């Protein structure tokens, strides 16, 4: 089997057999153990220490930005530079709590000055804007420092450079408080803890309305963010990395989002008065935050969302639940089906009951907690499966056909059989764009199938938020869902032909 330009997917190795249905030359992974739980969930145990323990010149503070041995230097911001010089934004996480925006948010959330706790002392903010610095001012000031992502070092600081460390499995390292970030599942779980939220950390709609940016985590987008000065290089370079990161990122982000919902609903079910319910940020942002100024009269405008008669199954006026995380994350099994031909016996994660409940105006918290809890279990089983595959470092070689099929599922899923847009919500369309872009970039920034880039650019243009002078829109004011039909159709066409599938 030729492997030129292929995408490599991480899958489990134990029990691999040569030969799958239809392609005797391909490796097939074992069926996932659906009772598994991945390691890397929640905050690792242990005592956090300041980054000074990492930044010795001979260790990670080499002073040469971007070089191995200078990880801390690369992460750190030059505090004397103004405006801020390039650095890792995590290094600023704590300091932003002192700025005007944070002050304003605090005022809006607590109008009564006497009862107001400044952001840099507010547990809600600190839960993400610093890690492990509850008792240690130095650790706190670092914001999201080394230990935030790599784990509290008390149990591994003095051993992690010794030969014995290399003999430990990722699972064993996690047991010592070390986050094995080389495993994509463990890594993204750790990112999602803050960037999506979870049982102990969250950004709700109150906070967003007060000025906190919306969290819209998509791992590959964040990973390749231009102002993110990374202090490492991937061991598994392109072409495989980005697609793996995209698939795992989708599943992990969804897992985090559903777990956050579960935690919220469980608190409300126990009559916790401090948890708002219904939690507005569980719904699609731009389903509400769109102007109603669009001319409702179909005779004059046939291309508005209303005129499209999108065949989604919601009642008129119902708000889609969590389209950012659930539009594609919920189909992780479908991507898996492409990447792993033998999918028999693998139940896809069915979010339908949860979605139905959440699309009511007043979802039942106990029911939501129950359904979300079940979905988390199913997702965890998937993640455990992917995690093992990552650890074993044995990848399915993805053929050009599979790359094409991935495109067909992502683009084709946007459309109904008769060519209508299946879901016009901006989040859902944007996630499809990001998925298609990931496949494109994984292919080395070249068309995996001829004619891929053109429609991709068209989608990107249609999704962009406009600017208006000095003001910036933070919602897709000019987004016209109908304009996405043509590029999706084009992508579906080019990925459907010649495969015979």
């Amino acid at each position, binding site marked *: 089997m030729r492997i030129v330009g292929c995408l490599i997917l991480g899958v489990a190795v134990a029990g691999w057999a040569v030969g799958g249905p239809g392609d005797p030359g391909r490796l097939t992974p074992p069926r996932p153990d659906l009772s598994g739980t991945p390691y890397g969930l929640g905050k690792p145990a242990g005592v956090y220490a300041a980054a000074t323990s990492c930044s010795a010149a001979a260790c990670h503070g080499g002073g040469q930005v971007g070089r191995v041995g200078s990880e801390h230097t690369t992460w750190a911001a030059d505090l004397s530079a103004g405006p801020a010089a390039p650095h890792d934004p995590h290094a600023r996480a704590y300091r932003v709590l002192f700025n005007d925006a944070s002050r304003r948010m605090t005022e809006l959330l607590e109008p009564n000055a006497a009862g107001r706790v400044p952001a840099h002392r507010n547990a809600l903010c600190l839960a993400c804007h610093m890690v492990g610095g509850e008792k240690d001012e130095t650790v706190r000031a670092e914001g999201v420092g080394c230990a935030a992502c790599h784990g509290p070092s008390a149990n591994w600081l003095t051993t992690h450079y010794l030969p014995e460390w290399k003999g430990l499995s990722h699972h064993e390292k996690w047991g010592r408080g070390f986050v094995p970030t080389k495993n994509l599942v463990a890594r993204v779980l750790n990112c999602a803890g803050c960037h999506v939220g979870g049982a102990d950390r969250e950004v709700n709609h109150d906070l967003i309305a*007060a000025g906190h940016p919306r969290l819209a985590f998509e791992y590959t987008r964040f990973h390749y963010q231009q102002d993110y000065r990374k202090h490492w290089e991937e061991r598994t370079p392109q072409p495989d990395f980005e697609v793996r990161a995209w698939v795992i990122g989708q599943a992990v982000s969804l897992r985090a989002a559903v777990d956050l919902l579960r935690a919220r609903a469980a608190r409300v079910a126990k009559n916790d008065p401090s948890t708002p319910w219904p939690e507005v940020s569980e719904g699609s942002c731009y389903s509400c935050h769109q*102007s109603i100024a669009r001319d409702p009269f*179909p*005779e004059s405008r046939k291309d508005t969302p209303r005129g499209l008669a999108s065949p989604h199954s919601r009642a*008129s006026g119902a708000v889609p639940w969590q389209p950012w995380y659930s539009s594609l994350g919920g189909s992780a099994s479908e991507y898996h089906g492409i990447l792993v031909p033998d999918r028999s016996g693998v139940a896809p994660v069915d979010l339908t009951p949860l979605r139905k409940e959440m699309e009511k105006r007043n979802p039942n918290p106990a029911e939501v907690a129950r359904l979300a809890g079940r979905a988390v279990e199913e997702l965890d089983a998937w993640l455990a499966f992917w995690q093992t595959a990552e650890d074993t470092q044995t990848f399915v070689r993805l053929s050009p056909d599979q790359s094409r099929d991935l495109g067909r599922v992502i683009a084709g899923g946007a459309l109904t059989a008769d060519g209508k847009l299946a879901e016009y919500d901006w989040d859902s369309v944007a996630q499809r764009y990001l998925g298609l872009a990931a496949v494109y970039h994984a292919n080395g920034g070249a068309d995996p199938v001829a004619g891929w880039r053109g429609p991709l650019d068209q989608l990107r243009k249609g999704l962009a938020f406009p600017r208006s002078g000095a003001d910036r829109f933070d919602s897709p004011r000019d987004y016209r869902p109908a304009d996405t039909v043509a590029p999706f159709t084009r992508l579906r066409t080019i990925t459907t032909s010649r495969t015979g599938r």
Partner: protein
Amino acid sequence: MTSRLDRRVGFATVAVGLLAVFVAGSPSPAHNPGPGPAKDPLIPASPDDVSTGFAGCRACHNEKYPIEPKGNPFATKYKSHQFVLLGEGRTWNEQDPHSRAHEVLSKPLGQQMTRLLKYDVTTSPRCLTCHAIDVTPTAPPEKKQFVTADGVTCNACHGLRKPWQQEHYAEKNKTIPWRTMPPGKKEAYGLRNLRDPAVKAALCAGCHVGSAAEDKVITHEMYAAGHPPLPPFELATFMECQPKHWGYPVNPDLKFFTPEGLAAHAGADFATAHPNWTWELYRFHPADQEVLLARSVATGAIASLRAEMRMIAADAAGVANDLRPDGMDYARFDCYACHHDLKVPSDRQARGYEGKPGRPPLKAWVAALPGVVVEHAAGLPPLADTATEFGPKWEAVRKAALSRPFGDPPELARAADEMAVWCDEFLKKSEADGKPLYPKEKARDLLAAIGRAATSAKWTADPEAAMHLTWAYVTLRGGIGEPVPDIKLKDLGATIPVRVRFEPYANENGEPYPAGVQIGPRLDLLRKYQSMDFTTKFRALLGGK
């Protein structure tokens, strides 16, 4: 037009029921309570008792303007053209969208709504309670019957029962006694006294705000399917912007309502025996005693608040009692609190929030104008005491709406109900002694207070509140006789819609422009709304006084 009018013939005797409205003092948010108040003279006893009217009405009320008395027996014999306009039906049919209220349901927008809502909007009671005539007002929705042929006809508003229709032109001793009959007696015949601002406001608000007790409820589901947003209801502005098939009694063209006109009809002694005849019989005060539109503005504001509070109370009570497990309808909340483009920097964050950030508040316009009316009423002796109770009651409603996302249903039901009861009280007291409340100087005070509110940061942040206050201000200034100069109105009109509708009301074929024609541009203006621009332009109006 002939063919259109012809096909109306025959509907005159169609049995219809009455829109059961303005049951003053009834705070019940519950569904229509069976047979209704005992012997309500506006509720027909049986289908034989009712008629929808237009085909019958047009026999007399379909004249062309100007009226030529010589050719019109009623004008010649009874000077009817000095009492009413006589061309009412023509105006309604050719200019007024009420006449097409049902017809629009089968147009493309209606078809779209049918498709998205998955029920037929041309036949569903949910739509017909406002878009047609409910002939069974006390029946539950599934048992209702409607007359749909002519939309919202004459008698849909004026009263569906036959007795008044037969009686109101009856001659006795060469005059028409109906004209000087007391309103109570006319009502006993089934005429709704639309000359009374409180009665009128309650009737209009039944559809233009909504009424759960009559199953006239606009929902978010309907909006999302394409129903145009109901504009904030401001009685005086809606009156001014509706093609008028009536004349204000303070208008000198209607000579009947002058002392001389009355004397000519009822004899010289009548006014002596009825010193307060303008109010007693026709619910107005002469122009030198009261500004008619000032009372309309004030009454309309409170009646709209009451209608909205009853809608909210009904919804919240349903949720609180688990009759509506789906929760409060989004349509009870401020549309623009959610439906805005997000911007950085954000006007809203700069301005601050009424409660916790991120909790949709109730519609801002609903309380803005009442707040002004109440502030002004503190200086009006009959209303001063009641006025002081507004603040705490509204605060309770506001708190209940914001204490959690989409409100705390039991608390909201209670507070909204109390607010509605307060509105009843206020309206009752504003008419109780039959004396003028809004002489010109008081009307000017009210105008100034509206102007202050319209330029205060408290309300300018919300486009609908700003628009509602603008409407009241512009209309009231016209009513006082000091209209906003066109050039300034045009300037302000670039920042906010300054009227509900603009003339011409009809196309060259004598077909009314559907209400929707002006909605697209209006919504577009609201989308671009900038509070700073609006405030600057509005201040220019104030400076001009």
